[in-house]
């Protein structure tokens, strides 16, 4: 292959080159800024993860998530293909372009624009097999990318066919980047077709070259198209920092940081910045969010919040306070952005810390009442928590079960609870909640119990994550009942009625307890599935994390969740959370009961 243009330069490369320089500077400063914001320990972790076996995992993650978008394929094959074809296809075009330069025009190695505009600058004087393989690959990948672009255009009109009921609204910066991105590849196709008879081409470009006939001869048209191609690229690169496509480079940095175990510690800077810019505004979180059921509330979904955080908008706090913190958007996010954590940090940064005052707790003497012999170590300490006091049937059934199994237990907050602290933490008051944590820990540790038994997933999560209980085992009552069944301490008969189980947000996604409640239910009834997978269960609407949700809005979330739960026509609905029980029992026409009640009814 020979060079057609002696110096390997033509003015049309200027726009593109400027664009690349701009973006490289931008990315460079951004990366340095993010890295500078890391704490010393985090920076050390990052270095050690790069110079270790973890590097392979990072590369694998980059391949699977940034290029192949495996997670999106799992949601919908067409949607996954659309993202993967553009990402992987374009990556391969750049990669193979560079290989072409290395092999055929090594003297131009290192020239930024050369691989991109390769087919303008080279010339095939005779038909050889030399470039043919690569030309074929390039045309193939170009076709793949074009098919992806076609799907993307189609998605703007009929997103339902790609599995998305709602798509993100675009801002101006997004629109400019989007249109220039869509134009790049058709323009590339056209440009490479124009030079296909000179530089060589394959099935796609040569065919179009033939179709173009006389037009392809004209240098005026050819140069114009290549100018257009370069300008489209430049426009895209200049618009990139102001659009959602920043996710392309940022996600790579994100994967490196995440695999080093780094988590966000501020709602905007450091690791958070890499998360925020990694959001591709794909919009999968909009359909996932339970709030988008009630009309205009889809404005508060994670994608729009991340946009507000990126632009450092004041009203991002207001949006963060709406969130139910159910975690579904985090579960489904293909980039695994922990937007719930960012919201929590935002709330924490704005919490009126000095005003709440829990000194009065220190004055309370821990009194633990026990049904058993006070000299013996009480094996199980039961903490009802604030919510279970409003649904006493849960602990009454649980006590009946434990009595039958001859377990010794104490009721820690029979006369009223000191709140476990999680609602306060969810409002951003993690510092203030330390007083509550201390007060409760004192009581628990002085009781000498082996197991702290909880019937509320909210308590369960906070006792696991924010308390240091010196080896006391924290168990949710569904887990404990499962243990009793396995140890054959209670005998059950299996009923012939059907039941559907709702995974509470804080027990399922929040604590990864999915199987034990299902094992318990399968032992006593016929378990039917809801329309959603366990990790995609829909919030009951009762969440305390949302500060501004009104009762009627919560009711519409509850009704939506019920609709999905009752899709297979179960006779009863079983929950393992007092808040879910209250929310569902209010509106469900079928019998709604707690898992402890279900088991108590089936005890022999």
């Amino acid at each position, binding site marked *: 292959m020979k060079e057609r243009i002696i110096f390997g330069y033509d003015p049309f490369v200027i726009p593109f080159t400027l664009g690349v320089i701009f973006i490289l500077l931008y990315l460079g400063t951004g990366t340095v800024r993010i890295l500078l914001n890391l704490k010393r320990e985090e920076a050390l972790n990052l270095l050690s993860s790069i110079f270790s076996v973890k590097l392979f995992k990072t590369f694998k993650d980059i391949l699977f998530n940034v290029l192949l978008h495996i997670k999106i394929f799992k949601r919908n094959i067409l949607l996954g293909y659309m993202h993967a074809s553009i990402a992987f296809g374009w990556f391969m075009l750049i990669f193979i372009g560079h290989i072409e330069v290395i092999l055929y025009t090594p003297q131009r190695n290192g020239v930024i624009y050369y691989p991109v505009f390769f087919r303008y600058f080279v010339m095939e004087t005779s038909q050889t097999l030399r470039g043919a393989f690569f030309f074929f690959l390039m045309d193939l990948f170009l076709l793949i990318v074009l098919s992806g672009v076609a799907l993307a255009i189609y998605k703007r009109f009929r997103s339902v066919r790609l599995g998305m009921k709602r798509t993100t609204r675009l801002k101006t910066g997004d629109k400019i980047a989007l249109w220039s991105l869509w134009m790049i590849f058709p323009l590339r196709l056209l440009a490479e077709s124009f030079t296909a008879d000179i530089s060589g081409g394959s099935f796609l470009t040569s065919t179009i070259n033939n179709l173009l006939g006389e037009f392809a001869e004209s240098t005026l048209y050819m140069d114009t198209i290549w100018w257009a191609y370069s300008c489209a690229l430049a426009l895209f690169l200049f618009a990139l920092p102001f659009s959602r496509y920043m996710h392309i480079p940022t996600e790579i940095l994100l994967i490196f940081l995440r695999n080093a175990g780094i988590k966000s510690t501020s709602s905007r800077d450091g690791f958070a910045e890499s998360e925020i810019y990694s959001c591709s505004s794909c919009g999968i979180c909009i359909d996932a969010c339970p709030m988008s059921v009630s009309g205009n509330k889809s404005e508060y979904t994670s994608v729009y919040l991340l946009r507000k955080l990126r632009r450092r908008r004041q009203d991002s706090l207001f949006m963060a306070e709406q969130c139910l913190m159910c975690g579904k958007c985090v579960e489904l996010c293909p980039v695994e952005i922990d937007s719930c954590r960012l919201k929590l940090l935002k709330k924490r940064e704005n919490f009126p810390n000095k005003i709440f005052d829990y000194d009065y707790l220190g*004055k309370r003497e821990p009194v633990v009442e026990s049904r058993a012999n006070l000299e013996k170590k009480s094996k199980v300490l039961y903490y009802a928590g604030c919510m279970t006091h409003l649904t006493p049937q849960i602990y009454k059934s649980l006590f009946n079960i434990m009595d039958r199994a001859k377990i010794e237990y104490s009721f820690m907050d029979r006369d009223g609870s000191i709140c476990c602290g999680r609602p306060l933490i969810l409002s951003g*008051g993690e510092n203030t909640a330390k007083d509550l944590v201390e007060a409760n820990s004192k009581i628990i540790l002085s009781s000498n119990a082996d197991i702290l038994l909880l019937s509320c997933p909210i308590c369960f999560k906070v006792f696991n994550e924010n308390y240091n209980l010196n080896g006391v085992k924290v168990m949710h009552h569904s887990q404990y009942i499962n243990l009793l069944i396995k140890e054959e301490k209670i005998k059950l008969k299996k009923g012939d009625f059907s039941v559907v189980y709702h995974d509470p947000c804080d027990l399922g996604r929040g604590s990864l307890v999915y199987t034990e409640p299902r094992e318990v239910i399968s032992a006593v009834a016929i378990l039917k599935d809801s329309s959603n997978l366990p990790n995609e269960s829909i919030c009951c609407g009762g969440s305390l994390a949302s500060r501004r949700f009104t009762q009627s809005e919560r009711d519409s979330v509850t009704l939506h969740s019920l609709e999905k739960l009752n899709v297979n026509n179960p006779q009863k609905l079983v929950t393992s959370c007092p808040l879910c029980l209250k929310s569902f029992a209010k509106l469900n026409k079928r019998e709604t009961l707690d898992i402890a009640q279900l088991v108590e009814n089936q005890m022999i």
Partner: protein
Amino acid sequence: MVDFGFKLSSSNRIDLDSCDSDLFLKLKAESGTIKQCIACGSCASSCSAANFTGVNFRKTILLIERGKNEEAKELIKGCMLCGKCTLVCPRGINTREIILSINQYYKKERF
């Protein structure tokens, strides 16, 4: 008539003519549910903090309505934000939101 010049000023009376409605108006504008209170006392009855200290949400709303904002803020500062009051309110008042709004009003952070 002679203008005597002396007067006993009433200090124990709630004078609705001159009470500081600033906080009350703000809370009404924010979510509006504070207007619906019938002072039934369910909130104060189920309150986790009320077992140990004087926290009383029903009284807080009353104090704000009568313009005694500082007292209201002092009364509510022991609140653990546990949410039981929100769950039992028969009028569907968003109690935790109001408590956080009151505290943010005093932090003057952002209302």
